[in-house]
């Protein structure tokens, strides 16, 4: 999966964001650039978090911004990876809802959404992959990790 994200230019690094809304907009950037989604999808994700809370932070240091299947602004299925040096606080003051690893998911059907989630969680269950992504601080380190683990 990392190889695919690298080939599609869907891996980006940032130092920090002023707030989680800006983080989500930036995390959508590479998917917008290749036409998988439009800016409307980023706003749909933000609305979703405002409505349901920061459940997109599914475990320590890991967020998977997404919203309903076939939401406004989704053109095709896709995943992007964003690494932020300073954890993004999706619920300010609650460290359990902060994340540096952000995988944005877009899907235009239910099968696509489940496929995205299955592939992503398979990769992240590999502790070496997860640790490698937590330690990665530039594109070169992600490329090395992808090559070393064959992911």
């Amino acid at each position, binding site marked *: 999966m990392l190889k695919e994200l690298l080939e599609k230019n869907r891996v980006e690094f940032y130092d920090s964001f002023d707030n989680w809304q800006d983080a989500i907009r930036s995390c959508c950037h590479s998917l917008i650039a290749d036409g998988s989604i439009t800016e409307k999808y980023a706003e749909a994700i933000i609305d979703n978090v405002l409505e*349901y809370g920061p*459940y*997109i932070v*599914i*475990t320590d240091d890991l967020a*998977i911004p*997404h919203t309903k*299947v076939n939401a406004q602004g989704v053109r095709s299925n896709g995943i992007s990876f964003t690494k932020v040096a300073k954890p993004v606080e999706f619920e300010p003051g609650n460290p359990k809802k902060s994340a540096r690893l952000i995988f944005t998911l877009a899907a235009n059907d*239910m099968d696509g*959404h*489940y496929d995205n*989630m*299955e592939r*992503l*969680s*398979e990769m*992240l*269950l590999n502790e070496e992959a997860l640790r490698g992504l937590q330690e990665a601080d530039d594109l070169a380190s992600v490329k090395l990790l992808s090559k070393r683990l064959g992911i």
Partner: protein
Amino acid sequence: MVEKTITVVNPSGIHARPATMLTEFAKSYAGMVEVIKGEKIGNLKSILMILTMGLKRGTEITLRVTGENEQEFLDSLVRFILDMED
């Protein structure tokens, strides 16, 4: 050890938000809580494990609970999943 087989019925299945709630519910139990789909067995206290299993609507799953008051927890787990909303 006690088990029960059920079918996922909520329209969107056990995607991220329900999976987060389900994981928290499983963690409230001190014993072991597992979900079985086909030949795959996953720890229900791990959200990544749940998400790898693709528990869409209509999926048949077996819940397995091992520990103190296991039948009581299994019953409440079944109710929790069957009552889950999207």
